[in-house]
């Protein structure tokens, strides 16, 4: 274990990279989730089709494959991202596809009565989404988004395979340098668990904040 301690600076670096990668791709994924998820309700067919193509592509292939593609193949066409950015893009685009389905189904879960009430009050299409459906859908999304955040954190470990110096990658360096196996892996498993538990806690916090003074749709209609 002392040997591992010697490597604590790079472990800390790796932890920071992992957190950066997670948060930056979370922001990206969140934006994509809303844009693509709401695009599915567009009246323009082309927009809907584009959203579905994006969704099926990123949901249908493996995240690892997407990363390798972005890291090794795109540069051959002159599109070169720095590794961290490539990682953020790959993680964000991948999780965004799942997130867009969360947004879509949360909006769909708002009861038909709410759609009809908005129509009866003569809200425009935009107003209906902006002031009625989305505000009610957001609390529904939060727990699922919380789970996706954990998925995202775990996905960043895969980024070590495209040479991003995240936590997992650092554990590999330590292995080479120290010839230890159990300890480096154990240490990073604990760090991952701590990070994800913080994320879980954070989600619960947001969940509580959003449910305050509001009512979820599951309860009595009205």
């Amino acid at each position, binding site marked *: 274990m002392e040997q591992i301690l010697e490597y604590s600076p790079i472990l800390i670096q790796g932890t920071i990279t992992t957190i950066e990668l997670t948060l930056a791709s979370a922001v990206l994924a969140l934006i994509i989730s809303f844009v693509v998820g709401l695009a599915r309700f567009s009246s323009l067919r082309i927009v809907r089709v584009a959203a579905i193509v994006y969704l099926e592509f990123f949901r249908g292939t493996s995240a690892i494959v997407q990363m390798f593609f972005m890291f090794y193949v795109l540069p051959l066409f002159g599109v070169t991202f720095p590794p961290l950015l490539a990682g953020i893009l790959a993680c964000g685009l991948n999780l965004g596809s799942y997130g867009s389905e969360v947004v879509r189904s949360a909006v769909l879960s708002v*009861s038909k*009565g*709410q759609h*009809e*009430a908005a*129509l*009866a*009050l*003569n*809200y*425009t*299409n935009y*107003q209906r989404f902006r*002031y*009625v459906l989305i*505000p*009610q859908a957001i609390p529904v999304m939060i727990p699922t988004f919380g789970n996706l955040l954990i998925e995202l954190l775990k996905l960043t470990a895969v980024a070590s395979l495209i040479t991003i110096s995240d936590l997992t990658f650092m554990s590999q360096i330590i292995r080479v340098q120290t010839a230890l196996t159990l300890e480096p892996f154990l240490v990073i498993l604990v760090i991952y668990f701590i990070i994800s538990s913080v994320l879980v806690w954070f989600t619960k916090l947001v969940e509580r904040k959003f449910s305050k*003074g*509001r*009512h*979820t*749709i599951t*309860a*009595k*209609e*009205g």
Partner: protein
Amino acid sequence: MEKIIEFQNVSKSFGDLQVLKNLDMHVNKGEKIALIGPSGSGKTTILRILMTLETIDSGHVVINEDYLWHQQTGSGLVAASEKHLHQMRENVGMVFQQFNLFPHLDAITNIVEPQVLVKGTDRVDATVKAQKLLALVGLEEKAKHYPHELSGGQQQRVAIARALALEPKIMLFDEVTSALDPELVDEVLNVLRVLAADTDTTMLTVTHEMNFAREFADRVLFFDKGQIVESGHPEKIFTTPEEPRTRNFLKKFIKDIA
């Protein structure tokens, strides 16, 4: 008398089920109508068509001398655009059986927001009006409560206030008390009784509360199988219905009254 609503030969089917069959009917300006009839007879469908929540298959619906589902163009009548429907909806307000208040907004904001968004009313003016309406339905002190903090009857009264806030010429009420516990029914019906005094607004109410219908309505329409079987003054319909079908239907309720 001036007609404000007119159904001209309107038909409507859901799949194989024809719900409205060549329906002709009209409602005069300011009239208070009670729609009664067995379950599945198409009462709700009529209100939903007026609120543009359902389309029609054939025929015409006229509101305030303008086609609801059609638009006059150079080359004749064509299906109404969303823009036209938006305009037409200004005439109509609806209160639902399930209240459908916005659960993420408190009572007063439920009433303020539609005014601001739809009519562009200034927020301060909208709030003043909302307060007046809450007073009208007896809920001044519940302004800051969220729907889930209100009883069913209170929610329904807020929903009525919300619909009134947009000042529609026509108000539709679809069994507004049937989702309520029996003891809460009266508080809502009392609000409707007050509203009935307003002679400008046309009101259509679907209800199973025959006593209420009798007090409230200028005219009762008895529906069965998508057609009007009988129509007339409530006293007449409830005491001496002409049609056997009407009599049959009313027996279930009249037993309570007579």
